[in-house]
Each structure stands twice: as structure tokens, then as C-alpha cells.
């Protein structure tokens, strides 16, 4: 038997949703946290040298390569072939840690150094995300 599905409609309907006309896209964390998607990468902090500004070991860092570096930004730099997260003092060419037990580092002529991006957000997982756990 062939059935043509037509939704029955007898003029009896429920109370129409009053919210129907107000529907918007749900909030997206991507939208909040990432301003330049094609110029952004995500990394993970490893170590305690940035604790005083609230970046702890294993925190997630959102690194934007589009924005320009300003004095005292939190940056990710390529420092002698290593990705490091530091505060940058552009005037004195210093890499500063945010932990009293770490010394500041002067960027010398012989160092290979480039700013890889600005850490625009950091995310703290107060409960471990299962996505980040190695199984």
C-alpha cells in the first residue's frame, strides 16, 4: 500500500510557543574566545612560571597571531627553538615570568627569537576534560 504522508491538521493546535519569534543562535564559546579563527591556535601550558597572572600548569592557552604585540602582553614566543609563554617587555627586550622564583630573561642578539602570537585567553579546567586525558 502506498501512503502519502500528509500531516493531519484539524485546526486544533496547542498554545503556540511565545518564544518562536525570538529564537537566536545559542551562545558559542568559540565566538567568545576566538576572535580570528584562521590566525589562532590552541596550546597547553606546561610549568608554573606564569602562576601570578593566573596561568597554571595544564591550562589551555588561546594564541592569536593576528593581533599586534603590545608591551606587557602575555605572548607565546619561539625562543631558541622552544615555544615559551612569557610576559614581554618590548622596551627593554625582556621576557618576564609571573612567578617570583623565576628570573627575567634578556633577549640577546644571538638568540633566535620571534613572537608566535599573543595569548588572548587562558582556560582553567577545574575538573579535567575527558578530551584532554590520554587514554
Amino acid at each position, binding site marked *: 500500500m502506498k501512503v502519502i504522508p500528509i500531516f493531519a491538521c484539524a485546526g486544533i493546535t496547542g498554545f503556540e510557543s511565545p518564544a518562536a519569534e525570538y529564537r537566536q543562535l545559542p551562545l558559542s564559546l568559540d565566538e567568545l574566545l576566538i576572535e580570528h*579563527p584562521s*590566525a589562532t591556535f590552541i*596550546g597547553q601550558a606546561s610549568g608554573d612560571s606564569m602562576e601570578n597572572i593566573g596561568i597554571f600548569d595544564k591550562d589551555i592557552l588561546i594564541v592569536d597571531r593576528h593581533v599586534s604585540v603590545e608591551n606587557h602582553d602575555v605572548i607565546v614566543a619561539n625562543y631558541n627553538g622552544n615555544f615559551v609563554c612569557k610576559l614581554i617587555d618590548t622596551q627593554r627586550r625582556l621576557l618576564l615570568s609571573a612567578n617570583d622564583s623565576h628570573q627575567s630573561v634578556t633577549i640577546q642578539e644571538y638568540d633566535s627569537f620571534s613572537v608566535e602570537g599573543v595569548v588572548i585567553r587562558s582556560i582553567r579546567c577545574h575538573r579535567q576534560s575527558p578530551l584532554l586525558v590520554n587514554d
Partner: protein
Amino acid sequence: MYALVDANSFYCSAEQVFRPEWRGRPVVVLSNNDGCIVAANRQAKALGIGKFGPYFEVRALCEQLGVIALSSNYELYGSLSHSMMEVIGRFAPEQHIYSIDESFLSFKHCYPAIPCLLTHGAKIRRAVWKETRLPVCVGIAETLTLAKVANHAAKKIYGYNGVCYIESVNQRDAILSAMKVTDVWGIGSRIGKKLHAMGITTALGLAKLQPGIARKNFSIEIERTVRELNGEACKGWDSARADKQQIFSTRSVGERITDKSTLQQALSKHAGIAAAKARKQGSAAGTILIFASNSPYDEQPNGFKYHYRCAHPTNDSCEIMAYASEIARQLYNPHTRYYKMGIGLLDLSPTKHRQGDLFTPEKDPALMQVYDQLNQRYGTDTVFIAAQGIEGKWHMRRELLTPQYTTCWQDIPQINCR
């Protein structure tokens, strides 16, 4: 006015984005199963490690010279290519992504508003480097073919610093005279040989050929190339990539295959890949080529190759898999340790103009449409046909694989806060 922007040794450069300690060092990327070198950066080439050689032949040399050899990390390349294309796309109202690392831009309607195209090109190059850490070269010229030429100059001719805008006829001819004719877009080695026989060895020689003669001796495509080299736009980017004449899916395997059912599964897998490619470009195959062999480096090269002529053109995965599997069953030799196998779809015809067959019922394409849509939306092999097996023992060997920094949470780069 067009620009061609492409990345320099893209695979190698992509591997250096999240490994700053590898920047400036020689890098090569290997093909599936780590068999051949498919990409080598400038530093590796300078050490004499070229493309397309079998890796095992140069492995010791690579280790000795400190060349970094890596398996292909397609997940990483795809993701970085996407970002790169987004950045490039900001610089023109129209963009055509030509391949994983090449993209055309058209300034047709807006270039009078750009004060200096050379500066614009330099801006593209800087932005891509700053935002994706991929090095690109930019070629700008009046036609697509000349944009390719300009890009070649930007890469190869010292002094252009990665950006070349062909502004005058003199400049154009100077570049063309320094360029091999086989480096011109669309001139393969076969046509190159014929041109050589006619005494044409440089791109300039080709540009000076009479268009009529080009058509008579070769084809309308070559005539267009000649005209384009002289600044007359003939190619649009819709026609820039013609449909493939033949579609192949072929691969060598990580572990030799010695049993019949594994061979059938591996060939079925390739049949599925090739069929999906055919559907994507709207083609159906009249002939299916099925082959499997051991390695050419084995003592006794051995294998089979079979042309299956279809009763009517097809691009249905189930159908092609069934043929492949049946032929593998018949031609399987228990004494061969199969290493390389694949499927070729030949005699392609567009499905749009398909001729119905009176005695073969028309196949409903709906199943394959849904199948392709599911795999496109949720990732390769979300649904698959069981003939290809569930656990692919013939999976790629990627022993030198780097992490998937941008697509897998567990692989995100570690940033030192020590």
C-alpha cells in the same frame, strides 16, 4: 588581473609550524607507508635529497646529514591549508582554491582601487606568514597562466623576494626567456618533447608561436596557453581544472598481504575510494583496472593487472567493489607477497549525458548520494561497505608521524612555562 599565491614546500613548511626547532633545517615528507619522498624543502634539496626517490635508498644519508624525515600528516596539512586559504581570501573579492597549497585571486573588478599591486602582494605574503607561519610566494599578472609564470619567477629568480608583479612586456619577456617551456602551466613532458623537437625550449619561444600553429600541432588548450602568455585572458578558473580523465586509488601497504580475503578487502577499499572520487566529479567508468603486485625491489617481481570492461558505465561503490573483489579472487596467487595494489577507473564519461541501457535497469543513485553525504559530514568511513573489511591490516604505515596539533585535543602543542 590575477594573483597566484602558493606555499613553499607546503608539507615541509606545515611540519615546521609547531616545531620551531625545525625551522631553517632540512625536512622531507614521505608518501603513504613511508615509501617515497614526496616533499623536500630548499635546505633538503641543497643537500642533494630530491623528491620522488624511494626513502630506503637515502635513509642512511638523511640520518647522516641530519635531514628530518616525516610521515605525511594529512590531518595537519588539511587544517593548516584551510587557515592559509582563509587568510589569502581576505585580499580579493574572488578566490579559487586550486590545490591544497595554491590559490588564485581575481582583482578583475577591484584592482584600480588597489594603489599598488606589488605592495598588495607583499601584504598577502606578510599576513600569511604572520598568521599561519607558512611561507608563500605571490605572482600577479594579467592572465592565470601569467600569474603562474610570475609566481615561478617570485620563487626562482633572485631579487623578487617572493612577490612578482608582471607590469610590462619587457619584464614579461625577460622572465619567459629565463623559464623552461616545461615549467609553463599545462605543458607536460610529452608536449615539452614535441616542442623541443620544434626548437622551442623556453617559455618565450612558446609565447612567440603562432596561435594557429599551436592549435594545429597540439590543441585548443595549447593555443589558449600561447595567447595567455601574451596577456590575452582565455582561461577562466572554472575551466582551469578540467575533470580528470582517469581516476586511481592505489597504495602500497604497511604489511605485505599474503591471504586472499585481505587482498580482496584492500582492493575493495580502493574501489570505494575511486568510486567516490568519480561521483564527486560526476563521472562514470566504462573500464575498471584492477592490479596488485609485490614490490619492484623484490627478487621476482610478480603480480596481476586486469581490465574489466563494464557493460554500462558505473560509479556505484557496491558494483565496482564487487568486480574488484571477484577479480582478486580469481587472480590471487598464494605465493605472491602483495605490496602494492589499486584500482583505476578509465573511459570516464559524464553521468549527465548517460545513455540508458534497455536491458540494464537504471540504478537509483540515491543510496550513493546518502552514503557520500554521511561520509562528508561526519568524516571518512563513517559508513562503509563491509567488503572492505572492518580492521584494515593494510592501513598506512606512518612511523614518523608528527602529532595532529590542530585537530586532536590530545595533540595540542605544549608551551613551556618553566
